[in-house]
């Protein structure tokens, strides 16, 4: 049976995720209110503005039921603002998100303003893409701390010549600082579908 992937549809890059879900032949569902959580096999928290989405999550009564479902193992993928919402620690503060279940620390807008937004093309990513893939960072957050059992998934080179982690996973949680929904292809969406939702 087709798997149903929900996309939190309060604000931000919702349509782009829905298109990718459709393109890989899965069932899409927009999630705005608690009743929309019924029948989904996984959920994507899209990019957008964290404060806005976080506030609407609470006001629409979604924060608590969603948190509970994630604790019980519902596969979740946060892109950019979505990854920030998943993080236990935001800008050095703990419990600063209405979700806040993934043991990572993030710094918002860590690369700077819009002029510092960038595209990084990497040759391949094991399990995700054997082809070169472009990662799109829009006023992106940085993963400044990863919990001991959180697994780094994608790394890029920094301007200073070091490496930094831009995607991570643990159990049913997947977080990417970049926006696969804005790029070509469905490699990351397939990865979420086949390795998390199954």
């Amino acid at each position: 049976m087709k798997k149903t992937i929900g996309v939190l549809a309060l604000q931000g890059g919702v349509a782009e995720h829905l298109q990718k879900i459709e393109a890989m032949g899965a069932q899409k569902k927009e999630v705005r209110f608690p009743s929309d959580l019924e029948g989904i096999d996984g959920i994507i928290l899209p990019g957008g503005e964290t404060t806005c989405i976080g506030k609407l999550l609470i006001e629409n009564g979604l924060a608590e039921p969603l948190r509970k479902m994630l604790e019980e193992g519902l596969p979740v993928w946060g892109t950019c603002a979505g990854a920030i919402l998943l993080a236990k620690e935001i800008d050095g503060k703990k419990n600063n998100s209405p979700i806040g279940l993934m043991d990572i620390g993030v710094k918002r807008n860590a690369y700077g303003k819009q002029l510092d937004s960038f595209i990084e093309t990497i040759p391949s990513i094991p399990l995700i893409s054997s082809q070169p893939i472009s990662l799109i960072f829009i006023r992106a957050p940085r993963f400044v701390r990863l919990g001991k059992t959180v697994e780094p998934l994608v790394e890029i080179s920094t301007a200073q010549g070091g490496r930094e982690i831009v995607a991570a996973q643990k159990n049913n949680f997947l977080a990417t600082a970049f926006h696969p929904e804005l790029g070509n292809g469905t490699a990351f969406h397939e990865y979420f579908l086949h390795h998390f939702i199954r």
Partner: protein
Amino acid sequence: MEDRKQLNRNLAQMLKGGVIMDVVNAKEAKIAEQAGAVAVMALERVPSDIRRDGGVARMSDPAMIMEIQEAVSIPVMAKVRIGHFVEAQILEAISIDYIDESEVLTPADELHHINKHKFKVPFVCGANNLGEALRRIAEGACMMRTKGEAGTGNVVEAVRHMRAITSDIRRLKNMELEELMVYAKNTGSPFELVCQVAKEGKLPVVNFAAGGIATPADAALLMQLGSDGIFVGSGIFKSENPEKRAQAIVKATTAYQDPKVLAEVSSRIGKPMSGLDVSNMEETERLATRGW
């Protein structure tokens, strides 16, 4: 498409379903952010005050814009006069996130708009109709908005402009190539962009509604008419209770299809800004006629 242009269009995509609010100082910017604004427009006077004061309206003091940049983590936009590419250079130098080449300010050039391809920083521009939107996109705009009639608290012009754009997009979808050429000729639209819109059934960039939006219902109306998001200028901080109204407009923009939610958020939010009747306004008082 070059990377920078894509990234700049992408930022606008991340603002979809959100509200961008005019603010005149850091305090208002924080109120807007807390209310759930996805970006703020930093300016010295909101459009209704510009309208009242008259005189030449220019780019705001960069120091005041920088204070607002310091105060919030959401993107900060600011306005330049139509055609004033040096004001745009100045805003780029202070790393503004988006420039609004705006008819709300007094135009600096009555013939030319800014060549926006020369800039790394993205631009949003206003349009009355599809042809105008496509001309601005051809000049490098990465986001569009309706002009509406700013500072009036009257939504009628924004509705007119949004309907003009969406209705023409629907018409283009059914046209033959030779008809698309006629459309391009008659509306002064770049032919390649006309063909792209006809094929894809939508603008190549995000399109927000702006100009005269004063209530949650106004915001939801424009969203139902096909807007990707909402700019509110004077409508928030010229109302009786800016905080409540800001929150209500944010909620209405996301739940625009749900009349029950709209009823709830429209209740007890204080008086809106007082409005102006646009129909008996002198042609010279209209801001939407600035630019082409």
